[in-house]
Structures are given as structure tokens and as C-alpha cells.
């Protein structure tokens, strides 16, 4: 709710200057490609301009624009995955590196040394590390994984939207998580899962 009690008025002519970089950073962090992030911001601002009469002033202009941008980001991710939905998932070496051929851990997961990424002191650095690890995922795994975590929808809804089988979705999410876990174990929690 805005404090003055009067409806806020949107000012589309100033959107690019006031929110452009913010929206661009938001999109870039989720789609991972500068050119696509730029396109998405443009689409979101155009959609916002067309829909601006539905703005009720219950949130700030930026919050409202971000909500529209979020939908555009999710659309882009769905489309990106759907276009390659029928491709085979390429083999992944990481599970083979983590497990013996009998399926046991080569090196059992250790306690994470600094087990509390919520600690104020580490917050920003942890985020940076996590974002870096996310960025290292192969694109398709990253797209699916990000979609799963920004969408409010269930895994079932997501797999219908992107046109992959339940099994393939589970395989991709598992691989993404194992990779992220491995990357964080190495780079943040300071335990090399390969060390003796």
C-alpha cells in the first residue's frame, strides 16, 4: 500500500533510466545470456506499458515491473528447454566420478565446515559463490533447475510446460543438484569431496 493513499501513477518514459539496469541484472542472473536478458527486458517493458492501466498502486513501480519481468523470464526458460525437449540428455561424468561402479560414495560427504550460509557476514559472498556455481551448470540443466526454483508450479506442471518425461526431468534436476552440491562443497564449504 502506498503511504499517501492516492494511487501511484506510472511513468513509462522514465522506466529505462530508473529500472533498466535493475531489470537487466535480474533477467541476466536467471537466463545467463546478455542478449537474451536484453530481449526479455524489452518484452517485459512493452508488456508493462500495454498493461499499465491495471496497475493499482498496491506495490512500487519497480515491484510491479519485476513481477511482469519474472513471467517473461519463466516463459523464456520454458521455451529454451522445450526447443530441445526431444534431444537426448547427454551422459554426465560427475556421478561416475562421485560413485564407485557398485554405487557407493568414493568419498563420503563430510560435514560442511561453515554450515550456516545464513550468517550475515557470509551472506553476500555465499550468494556470489552460489551464483557462480549455478552459472557453471550446462545451459539446459541450468534452465530447468532455475525454472523449478522460480516457478510456483509443481514439478509436474513444469514438465508438461517444457514437454519432457517425468523421468527425464528427475534426471536433469538430480544432475543439476549433484553438480551444485559438488561445486559448493569445493568452493564454499572448503571440503574437497575427492580428498582423503
Amino acid at each position, binding site marked *: 500500500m502506498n503511504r499517501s493513499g492516492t494511487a501511484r501513477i506510472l511513468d513509462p518514459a522514465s522506466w*529505462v533510466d530508473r529500472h533498466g539496469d535493475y531489470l537487466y*541484472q535480474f533477467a*541476466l542472473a536467471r537466463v545467463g545470456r546478455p542478449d537474451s536478458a536484453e530481449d526479455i527486458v*524489452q518484452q517485459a517493458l*512493452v508488456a508493462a506499458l500495454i498493461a499499465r492501466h491495471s496497475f493499482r498502486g498496491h506495490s512500487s513501480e519497480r515491484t510491479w515491473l519485476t513481477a511482469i519481468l519474472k513471467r517473461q523470464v519463466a516463459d523464456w526458460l520454458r521455451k529454451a528447454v522445450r526447443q530441445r525437449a526431444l534431444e537426448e540428455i547427454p551422459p554426465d561424468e560427475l556421478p561416475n566420478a562421485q560413485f564407485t561402479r557398485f554405487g557407493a560414495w568414493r568419498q563420503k*560427504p563430510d*560435514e560442511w565446515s561453515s554450515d550456516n550460509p545464513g550468517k550475515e557476514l557470509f551472506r553476500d559472498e555465499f550468494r556470489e559463490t552460489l551464483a557462480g556455481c549455478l552459472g557453471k551448470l550446462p545451459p539446459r540443466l541450468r534452465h530447468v533447475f532455475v525454472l523449478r526454483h522460480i516457478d510456483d508450479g509443481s514439478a509436474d506442471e513444469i514438465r508438461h510446460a517444457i514437454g519432457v518425461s517425468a523421468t527425464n526431468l528427475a534426471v536433469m534436476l538430480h544432475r543439476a543438484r549433484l553438480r551444485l*552440491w559438488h561445486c559448493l562443497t569445493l568452493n564454499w564449504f572448503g571440503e574437497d569431496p575427492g580428498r582423503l
Partner: protein
Amino acid sequence: MITCRRATELISKELDTELPLAQRVGLEIHSLVCSGCRRYRRQLSTVDNAVRELLAAPASDRDAALSAASKENLKAALQGLLDQEA
């Protein structure tokens, strides 16, 4: 008894959907005897929460910016639409 490799698949799966009874039982029994998978399970839920938080937050790369040219293009596009309406 399921393997650790299989357990990690189920640990991921349970973050997305309710496991069928047999899988749930298999995972619980495995977790009772395997400290490594218990840790993995705990750590993976930490990772999942952290990712959710990261993606709900504004942005991690505050140095990234639209180029001046892109901004001009964007402004022109929006202004064009506004003019059309007027």
C-alpha cells in the same frame, strides 16, 4: 538395500514430489545406516533453500548494465508505443 548412488537420486526426487512408499522406505532404511547420504540429504536441502532465496532476491551481479545504445533503443520503442496511443 539401495546404493548411495540410487539414494542421491531419491533425495533429489523427494524435493520435487512425494516418493512412492517403496522408495520412501528404501531411502529411510538407507539413511539409517549411511551417514554420508544423511549429510547429502541435509546439505541438498540447504542448497535448494539457498537457490530459492537467491532467485527470489533482486540480482547477484550488480555491475551488469544495459549498454547506452540498448537503453536508447528501449526508450525509443516505449516512446513509440506511447505516441501511438496518444
